């Protein structure tokens, strides 16, 4: 059994300035695999500049890693043949943040749906193509008669984003990389879109990588979570453990900063320390960390495995066994959670 997609110690640096001397680390070495036999939803959470979009682009083969390799079904991406590359492009689909920019305003929205059908020869006849498109729209809770034949500006952001989910779905992918799919959509419609993603995972066995800065939706949708901070993984594991009992001070800060819908005003008490930028060496969070110790500036903390399904990169956990970077997948294995479900509502 082969892994669908695998990152092997993949890192990404961007160079700039004269003679490429300014080097910016966008992603520290990361290993990660998507196993088609265990389809789950993994959330990648972090603030802007944490490396989440870099990770998505690496997985999609849109940028090349500086070091390490990305493998699709056991073959490094650059060595794929034309036919294999085509298969990769079908099996791994992307949904991007902006449901406005991905459409050409001069074409009807049908265009984004019929193009993949044609390019990947999914249907022989016009009727069959139409049927496929309509079916995909229904799966994401849209009524084809209200969507087809319209121009992008005639549809809402939520509808447009669901069309993108439908487009991804047409190709029967094994993995969908969704980069901030609901950040530009109204709160009342977010649930519906996230519900369609959840449905694709549960009913069609599609793995989903949900990239977001919003921990609350990540908690609702994902099985496992990866928290990135300044290009490094600071915490990873079962979403229930990471959100309910975060071990890294950054994850703790992130959770405390979410304004809650509550009559208890518990927001905005403590402010993090000065943000001088990351220290030259050691833990990248040390400058903001309320519990930083001298050793945090002396060495880079490894990921410590605080429980079988939970790891965090903080020296306060150093009594626990080290989780080697290549084994990070072990804490990210989806475990089926009983009884949790999103109620996705379809248009009235």
């Amino acid at each position: 059994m082969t892994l669908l997609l695998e990152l092997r110690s993949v890192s990404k640096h961007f160079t700039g300035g004269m003679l490429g001397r300014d080097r910016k680390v966008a992603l520290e070495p990361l290993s990660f695999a998507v196993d088609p036999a265990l389809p789950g939803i993994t959330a990648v959470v972090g603030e802007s500049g944490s490396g989440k979009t870099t990770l998505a682009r690496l997985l999609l083969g849109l940028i090349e890693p500086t070091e390490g390799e990305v493998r699709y079904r056991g073959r490094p991406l650059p060595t794929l043949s034309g036919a294999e590359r085509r298969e990769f492009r079908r099996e791994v689909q992307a949904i991007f943040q902006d449901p406005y920019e991905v459409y050409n305003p001069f074409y009807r929205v049908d265009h984004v749906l019929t193009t993949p059908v044609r390019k990947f020869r999914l249907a022989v006849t016009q009727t069959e193509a139409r049927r496929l498109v309509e079916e995909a729209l229904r799966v994401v809770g849209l009524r084809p008669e209200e969507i087809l034949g319209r121009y992008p500006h005639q549809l809402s952001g939520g509808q447009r984003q669901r069309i993108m989910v439908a487009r991804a779905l047409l190709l029967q992918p094994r993995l969908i990389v969704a980069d901030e799919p609901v950040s530009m959509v109204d709160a009342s419609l977010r649930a519906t879109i996230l519900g369609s993603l959840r449905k694709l995972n549960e009913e069609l066995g599609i793995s989903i990588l949900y990239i977001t800065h919003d921990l609350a939706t990540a908690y609702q949708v994902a099985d496992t979570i990866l928290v990135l901070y300044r290009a490094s993984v600071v915490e990873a594991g079962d979403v229930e453990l990471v959100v309910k009992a975060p071990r890294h001070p950054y994850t703790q800060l992130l959770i405390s900063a979410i304004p809650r819908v509550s009559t208890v005003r518990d927001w905005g008490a403590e402010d993090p320390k000065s943000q001088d930028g990351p220290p030259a060496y050691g833990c990248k969070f040390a400058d903001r960390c309320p519990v930083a110790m001298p050793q945090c500036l002396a060495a880079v903390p490894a990921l410590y495995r605080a429980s079988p399904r939970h790891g965090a990169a903080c020296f306060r956990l150093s009594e626990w066994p080290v989780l080697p970077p290549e084994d990070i997948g072990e804490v990210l294995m989806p475990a089926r959670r009983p009884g949790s479900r999103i109620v996705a509502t379809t248009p009235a």
Partner: protein
Amino acid sequence: MSGSVLRVDRLRVAYDHPLGPVRAVDELSFSLRPRERFGLAGESGSGKSTMALAILRMIKPPGRIEGGAVWLDDIALSGLADDEMRRLRLAAIAMVPQGSMNSLNPVARIRQQISDALADHGERLSKRDAETRIRTLLAQVGLPPEIADRYPHELSGGMKQRACIAIAICLRPKVIIADEPTSALDVVVQRQVMETLGHVQAELGAAVILIGHDIGLMAQFVDRLGIMYAGRLVEVAPIRDIITAPRHPYTRMLIESLPSLERKGELRGIPGLAPVLRELPSGCAFHPRCPKAQARCRTEKPAVRAIGEDASVACHFA
């Protein structure tokens, strides 16, 4: 009502369109008490930002204010000449705009942008006094004095938003309108910026209108919340009441649609779509999406009913 610093009375704003005018703000009324933090929440297109621009008389064609009045203390803003209104903006009612990155001048240092604002409103300060004023303003929003020499692109998102707050408070306004001031920021930075806004508001004794769609942010920041739907204020209530016992079905569904960090699997969307203003449903604009809709809701537009001093609701059955 006496004792209000700003009073919006049956305000109507329309956008002209070849097929007839579209009403974006429909008979909207509320009043803001001194020092109050009032939230305006709703989905995109519900008229929140139009409302803010209408208060400032900054609606541009094809939009126009159709009717109603805005009172600042006992001055009717609609009766002011254009240049009187211009002087009043920033000095009495200041706006913290949505995208700080787009509202600062990219080719001017922060010092220049603050002193322009002061000079433009007739504050003639000596170089030294201006410098002291700028330092004080920056300190008030938690920025070090050297920020004055920076250009906007040299600042982070949070710093830019604080610089915008510094400009907004430079003439000690009575009312600060903050239009989604943190929508582009990360949560940690959002908390810092909102804290800054809270501090300067307390220092100035100003009232704040916070516009946004994040009910969590409202819950943590405002005293009273107004919920907008299709250009109308469908519910207003003290924040505690609106969270614990929302009266309007839309308010209730909006709150229920928010992802919680406490309980998993409770995410519910609101069925259907926000209405297109040009083809507004008859009767109550929310009726096609409302689980409690009756025959009456399809024909009769519910009036805004006052509930005590500081709450109101527009629903036949609330």
